[in-house]
């Protein structure tokens, strides 16, 4: 640990089968309720393994929520947008309750990593935290 830098981690393992079941039962509404238009466009562009990719995105949102460690507050998946960045690691953009919680926790920056294999997808979120409102963007890379 580097003195003065608070690093926190969230991880989530997602069953691709469970996501497949939800998509089959709830269809388009599940996607529109929980994913932004940009996220849906990226998912639609996935030729092979769309459900695995979707599971990974869900995992990333959950991992980020775990990293932020809300207490009694609900953080909707919709408030965490996870987008691929052309060959680089995906990036998360926070809004609403997620952004408010991140601000309160003093989140400076966050990195996300997603992987999937077979019936499982896993995602990790690593955040660098400082004092609330403090700019720590220079610490993460």
């Amino acid at each position, binding site marked *: 640990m580097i003195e003065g830098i608070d690093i926190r981690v969230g991880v989530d393992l997602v069953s691709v089968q469970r996501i497949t079941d939800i998509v089959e039962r709830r269809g388009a509404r599940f996607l529109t309720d929980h994913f932004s238009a940009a996220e849906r466009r990226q998912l639609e562009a996935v030729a092979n393994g769309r459900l695995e990719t979707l599971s990974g995105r869900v995992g990333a949102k959950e991992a980020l929520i775990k990293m932020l460690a809300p207490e*009694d507050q*609900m953080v*909707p998946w919709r408030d965490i947008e996870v987008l691929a960045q052309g060959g680089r690691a995906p990036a998360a953009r926070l809004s609403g309750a997620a952004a408010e919680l991140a601000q309160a926790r003093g989140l400076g920056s966050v990195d996300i990593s997603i992987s999937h294999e077979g019936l499982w997808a896993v995602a990790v979120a690593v955040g660098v935290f400082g004092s609330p409102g403090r700019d720590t963007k220079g610490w993460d890379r």
Partner: protein
Amino acid sequence: MNEVTRILSWIMERNPELVEPPAADDDLIERRLIDSLAFVDFLYFLEELSGKEVDMATVDVDDFRSVEAIRRRFLS
């Protein structure tokens, strides 16, 4: 079948290891009877039961903590 019975059936279906339904004041989250993925589906189920859309901006974790809390918040 009333709404509470349907909620208990929903929980039992997703937790086949349960030998009996949770009590009205059992902590569903603490007992991990509704995890985050199940929660997404549960919201849709709750909307079907109540006939009303659940606005995520107006709810908190305690609204879903027990069957009784769910009944009070969404079905009364």
